């Protein structure tokens, strides 16, 4: 039971990541392959603040998300000049850079040794240490994120995002400042990814660079594409199915040296089949 709740917490964190990437990729049509880097920034910021200065994780979470959105601004700046696979590659590159920084700036991040003993969230008189309590917290954050994303994409602002996705020149020609919108999208997306990162850090209580490898960003993109791009419900489906389903491999009794690569192979194969058969995902409204 404990284990099942743990899987739900992890999928909740992935749902937040998927929802925020869906805003960038699915609704605005900007292929971003560096999403996990924002989560990395959020996780390290709030963990370091809690470990070194004793700052409450609640405040750390907000500060981490804000720092992540500064990085989102930088990535968005790159996205102004690039399109298509060049943008995908540049964002992937920024993800590699952040990963390298977390691994090599040993004085700050302790490098591959990681940061152990990160304190958990507390509400007055109670520490959210049991898994069920943390699950409640994550569910609250998932619903806040889903609510905000829904409000964004159904507002006039969201319609402009979709118009940028469908035809950038046309939206420019009706006087929309697409540069501003692209920057905004990356800032918002990075903000929520930062929240997901710090939720992860305070849950696992240990982070090291290996949780934020660049390939993890491809996994988040797979979740977005699998569920369906440009659809908030799709983000839920993608994250839940792709986190829970491979866990079943565990019950086949395979040793972890077999189960781990097998799981990745399924992801890879799924990505290929999806691209050939259904590039818009299960209930997607947009395809690359």
């Amino acid at each position: 039971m404990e284990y099942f709740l743990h899987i739900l917490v992890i999928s909740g964190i992935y749902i937040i990541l998927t929802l925020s990437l869906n805003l960038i990729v699915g609704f605005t049509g900007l292929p971003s392959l560096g999403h996990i880097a924002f989560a990395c920034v959020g996780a390290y910021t709030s963990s370091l603040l809690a470990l070194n200065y004793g700052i409450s994780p609640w405040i750390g979470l907000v500060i981490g998300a804000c720092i992540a959105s500064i990085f989102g601004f930088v990535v968005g700046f790159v996205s102004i000049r690039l399109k298509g696979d060049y943008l995908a590659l540049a964002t992937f590159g920024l993800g590699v850079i952040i990963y390298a920084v977390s691994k090599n700036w040993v004085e700050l991040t302790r490098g591959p040794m990681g940061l152990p003993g990160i304190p958990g969230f507390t509400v007055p008189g109670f520490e959210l240490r049991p898994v069920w309590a943390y699950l409640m917290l994550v569910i609250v954050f998932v619903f806040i994120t889903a609510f905000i994303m829904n409000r964004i994409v159904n507002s006039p602002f969201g319609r402009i995002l979709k118009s940028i996705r469908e035809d950038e020149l046309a939206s420019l020609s009706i006087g929309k400042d697409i540069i501003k919108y692209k920057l905004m999208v990356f800032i918002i997306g990075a903000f929520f990814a930062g929240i997901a990162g710090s939720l992860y850090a305070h849950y696992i209580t240990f982070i090291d660079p290996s949780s934020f490898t660049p390939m993890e960003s491809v996994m988040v993109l797979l979740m977005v594409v699998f569920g369906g791009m440009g659809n908030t419900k799709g983000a839920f489906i993608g994250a839940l199915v792709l986190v829970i389903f491979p866990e079943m491999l565990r019950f086949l009794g395979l040793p972890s040296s077999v189960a781990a690569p097998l799981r990745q192979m399924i992801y890879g194969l799924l990505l290929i089949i999806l691209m050939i058969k259904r590039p818009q995902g299960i209930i997607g409204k947009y395809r690359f």
Partner: protein
Amino acid sequence: MFNQLLLNGIISGSIYALIAFGFAVIYKTVRFFHFAHGIVYTAGAYCAYSLSISLGINVILSFFLASAFSAVLGIAIDRLVYLPLRKNNASDLVFLIASFGVFIFIQNLLQLIYGAQILTLRTGVVKEGHQILGAVITNIQILILVVSCWLLVILWFIVERTKIGKAIRAVADDPIGASVSGIYSERIILYAFGIGSALAGVSGVLISYETNIEPTMGMNAILKGIIASIVGGMGSVPGAVLGGFFLGIVENLGIWKIQAGWKDTISFAVLIIFLLIRPEGIFGKRNDKERL
């Protein structure tokens, strides 16, 4: 110290140039980022390991067999994954994502077969290198330099001077025009994948004599290959080669004053600077910029 770093830069540059050459030849004909090129490189190294260490086949023979295997693997990826996508008229991004899928799939297949531990093709003790102008170079490194430069010259000759190369350039310039004049573009794509993937395999085998083999080695290699191609100018084969050497040298001189762990950061900084300031690369033509 400077000479040593420069020499190291040229050696890693020659490997990057080989990878970038193959990547650029493939890119020329199909016009998308064949990310799985990196996994062909890894598979080539593992194939050579199986042949020469596990089966004890002669080193030179296993070298050729491994590069042939890589060529077949590259062609198989094209037939099984990219051909259906071409039929669907998929966009570049769909190709790129599918290519990531191939990469993840084969990388983990290799990990399943060989395990995650580090292997090497080296047998016996490492001999001390030769002194040249204050820099040390080992026999293996001389071999890498000689083989890669020789291959680059031969392949440059194939691409620039033979009929196949002409057909590849024709498909690159104008696929429809090429097919009107009787060039069967699917066959040219096949050649491009064969040549490019064989090169990836060769560079994988060469590097395995110098460093180690591990399932994750392909990632770094293909990223460097792509960066070299972009720096040199996308779709320009001589540009990719020069970009490879440029990247290798910049990366190695960059770690003169800072730790070696920052190498990748340096090359991605180079990429992002180029993408923002000169996206068409050193040798790219201005009209290539339309695609950006």
